[in-house]
C-alpha cells in the first residue's frame, strides 16, 4: 500500500498544481499603478512555493515507493551527508531565498504605505457602517465638514452626521453611495469607521485596508482603467457583512466633472 500511496501523492500533487500552471484562476485585471508590483511578487512567490510543494510531494512519493514493502532484512541506508547537509540547505538556500523575497517585497509595500500621496491627489472620505459604504467629496470649497455622530440620521440620508445648518464647510459636501473617480488621477481616500470594524477591498485595484473606529486611516491609489468594480467589506462586521458592498466607478475626466456638477446641483 506504500507504493499505492506514493502514486496517489504524485497524482494529487500534479492535480493540485495543474490549475495554477494552466492559470485557471487568474487574478482579476490590475487597474492600478502599483498593482503590478504586487502581482509580480505573488507570481515569484508562486513559483518558489510551487517548486517547494511539488518537489516535496514528489520526493516523499519517491522515497515511499522505494522504501516501503521491502523484503525483510533489507539493508538500511543513511542519507548521504546526513542531517548536516539538509540543515545547511535549509538555512542557506531556503533561508536566503525567503529573506530575499521579503526584502524585494518591501518595495511593493513601500509604494502603497511609505510614499505619501501627491499634493494634488483627489481627496475623498469613505465611511463604512453596518452595512453600507458612503463616500464624501469636499465640494468646491475643497474642505470636508466636521462629522457629528449625534447628528447622524439615516432616515434623512445624513450618513456622516453633517451639521448643514451651522457648518459652512459641510454644505457643499457631496455624499454618494458609489465611489466615483476620474481615471488616471491619484485618489487620496480617508477611512472613517462609524460603528464597528470594516474593511475596504477592491480586488482589481489591489487595495485592501481596514476601517478602525477611532483611528484616522487613509490609502492612496491611482485607477488606470475605466469601468465599474466591486468594493466589498472584508472585516466581519455583523449579519449583513456578506452583503455589504459598493461600487468603484472609474470614469473619464469629462464624465467625472459632469457627475460632480450634477451631484452639486442636488
Amino acid at each position: 500500500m506504500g507504493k499505492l500511496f506514493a502514486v496517489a501523492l504524485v497524482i494529487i500533487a500534479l492535480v493540485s498544481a495543474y490549475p495554477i500552471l494552466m492559470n485557471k484562476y487568474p487574478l482579476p485585471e490590475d487597474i492600478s499603478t502599483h498593482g503590478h508590483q504586487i502581482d509580480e511578487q505573488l507570481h515569484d512567490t508562486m513559483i518558489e512555493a510551487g517548486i517547494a510543494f511539488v518537489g516535496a510531494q514528489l520526493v516523499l512519493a519517491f522515497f515511499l515507493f522505494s522504501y516501503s514493502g521491502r523484503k525483510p532484512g533489507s539493508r538500511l541506508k543513511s542519507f548521504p551527508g546526513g542531517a548536516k547537509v539538509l540543515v545547511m540547505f535549509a538555512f542557506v538556500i531556503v533561508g536566503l531565498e525567503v529573506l530575499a523575497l521579503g526584502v524585494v517585497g518591501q518595495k511593493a509595500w513601500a509604494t502603497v504605505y511609505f510614499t505619501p500621496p501627491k499634493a494634488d491627489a483627489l481627496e475623498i472620505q469613505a465611511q463604512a457602517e453596518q452595512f453600507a459604504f458612503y463616500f464624501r467629496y469636499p465640494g468646491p470649497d475643497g474642505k470636508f465638514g466636521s462629522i457629528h455622530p449625534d447628528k447622524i440620521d439615516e432616515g434623512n440620508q445624513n450618513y456622516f452626521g453633517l451639521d448643514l445648518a451651522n457648518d459652512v464647510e459641510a454644505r457643499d459636501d457631496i455624499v454618494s453611495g458609489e465611489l466615483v473617480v476620474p481615471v488616471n488621477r491619484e485618489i487620496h481616500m480617508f477611512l472613517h469607521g462609524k460603528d464597528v470594524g470594516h474593511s475596504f477591498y477592491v480586488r482589481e485595484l489591489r487595495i485592501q485596508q481596514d476601517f478602525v473606529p477611532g483611528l484616522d486611516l487613509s490609502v492612496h491609489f491611482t485607477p488606470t482603467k475605466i469601468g465599474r468594480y466591486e468594493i466589498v467589506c472584508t472585516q466581519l462586521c455583523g449579519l449583513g457583512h456578506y452583503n455589504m458592498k459598493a461600487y468603484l466607478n472609474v470614469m473619464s475626466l469629462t464624465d467625472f466633472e459632469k457627475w460632480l456638477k450634477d451631484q452639486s446641483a442636488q
Partner: protein
Amino acid sequence: MGEGSVQQAHVHAPPEGFIRKYVFSLDHKVIGKQYFALALVAVFTGMILSWLMRIHMVWPNTKFPGLELLSKVGAPGGIMTPEYYLSLLTMHGTLMVFFVLTNAPFAAFGNYFLPIQIGAEDMAFPRFNMMSFWTTFLAWFVLMLAFVIPDGPPIAGWTEYAPLSAVGKDAGPGMAWGASLWGLSIAIFCIASLLGALNFIATTLDLRAKGMTLMRMPICTWAWFITSCIALLAFAVLLPACILLILDRHAGTSFFIPGGLVISDRLQPHSGGSPLLWQHLFWFFGHPEVYIAILPSIGIVSHILINSMRKPLLSSKVIIYSMMSIGFLSYMVWGHHMFLSGMNPMSALAFSFPTLTITIPATVMTLIWLGSLYGANIQINSASLFALGFISMFVAGGVSGFFLAQPAIDIYLHATYFVVGHFHMVMGVASLFGVFAATYFWFPKMTGRFMNEGLGKLHFWITFVGTYCIFMPFHYLGLIGNVRRYQSFVDDYMAPYIPLHKFITISALITGAAQLIFLYNLIYSRFKGKLAPDNPWNATSLEWSIPSPPPWNNFGGKHPVVYHDPYQYGVKGSKGDFVMQDSPEQVIVSGD
C-alpha cells in the same frame, strides 16, 4: 528511611470506587482519555457545524430539518438566517481551535503518555490535573450554553474583534449574552490550560527516571514540553484580554471601544478605547496558539515515523532544536495577522521577517523527515499512513503561509479563502492527521486491543483524498479574491465559482462521513478489537515496556532506569532490529 517516605513514593493511592476511578480521577491516563473524549465530542460538533455552513453556502434556501428546534430565531422553518450562519461559524472556529486542537494532540495524548515516556508514576500535580480537565469541561459547557440561549451564539467569529464584540447587544444577534458566554468560556479555558501547562512543565523537569536526561526524552515528549512553555505565556495573555472584554461589555469600561460610535442608531456610551489593543492582545495569544496546535502533532508524527521506518531520524536533536526555535519565533510574529489593521506600516515589515524566518525550521524538519525516509524500511499501517500523510499536508499548508507572510501580497490575499485554505490545511488537516496517527498507534497500549486495520486504512484514504479535495480549491478561490466569512455569494463576481464551491461542499460531506468510520472503529475496537500484546509495534520508548493497558501506577511500583536514547532501531547485533530504552544492552551511541 522511616514510615513517611513509604507513602511519598507513590503519588497517590490506588483509586477505588467508580467516581474516583472514572469521574474525578487523579490518574493522568484517565484524564488523558477524558480530554480525548471531550475533543471527540467537540470535533464532531464542529464538523456538523461546518456541514451546515457549507450546505447553506451553496444552497442558501436549504431547510435543515430540526434546525429550528436549535434556534427558532436563527433558523425559522429550518432555513438558516445570515446571522445564524455567522453564529455557527463562530462556534465552529472556537470549538475546533480550543476544544479540539489544544485538547487532543496536547492535553489528551500528552497527559496520557508524557509521564510514562519519562518513567514517572503520574504527573507532578495529579489534583491540579484533575482540576484542569474539569475546568476545561466547564469551559466547554459554558460555551455550549450559547446555543441554547434565545439570542444564540455570538456572530463575531472566533477572533471576536472589538468593537463588534465589545459593545453588547447593539452590535447584532448573539452579541448580548452569546458573546459574554464566549468570553467567560474562553477565560475559564485559559485557567484550565495554564494549570495543565504548569503540570507538564514541572513533571518534565523534575520527575524523569534515572538515566532519562532531557536529550534522551522521546521527540513527542519534547513537543509536549515545548508546547506547554508556549501555552503558559500565550494563555496568560488571553486571560487578561477576555477579562477586559467582559468588563467593556458589562461594566461600561472602554478598553477597546473608542468614542463617537453610532451602532443601531445609538451613540455608544464609551470613549477612548482601542480596537487595535484587542487585536494585539488576541494575536499575541493567537499566533502561539496555532503552534500549540501543530507542535504536538509534529512530535507525535516524528515518534511514529521512526518506529514505522525501523530507523532513527537523521537527527532527533535537530528536530528538537527546530521545535524550540519555532516556539521562540512564534512570539515575534503576531502582527502578521494585522498587516492591514491600521497599525504602523513599519511594524508590518518588522513582523514579516520573523514570519518568513519560521520557514527555515519548518523546512529543516521536513527535510529531516524526508531524508530519513531514504534507505528506511517503511512499515505501512493506519498509524504510519497518517504520519506520512502529515508530511504531505504540512508542506501543502505551510507553503501558502509563505505568501501570507509578505505584507504586499497580503494586501490582496487578506481575508480571502486563501487564508482559510492555509490554516485549515495546517491545523484542520495536518494537526488532525497527527491525532489520527496517535490514536491508531497508541490505541493498543491504552486498551490492550488493536483498532481494525482495514477500517483504518479506509478512513485514511477517504480522509487524505477528501481533505485535499476540500482545502486545495480554497487557495484557488483566494487567488480570485473570494472573500471569507460570507454566508453566501450574492454577487455576479462570484457566480462562476459556485460550481467549485459545490464540489467542495460535497467533498466535505463525504470526508466528514468517513470520520464516522473512525468513530465506529474506536468504539467497536474498544470492546471487540483483536487483543494486542504489550509491544505490538516493536517499539522502543518506555510506554512499550509496560502492560497494555498500563496499571494504575504505570510501572507497577518499580522505577525504570534508562540507558540510552529512545530510538535504537536498526541496531547491529541486537536481538530483532531494536533495543528498548530501558534495556542495558550495549548499543551504538549515535553521533549527536
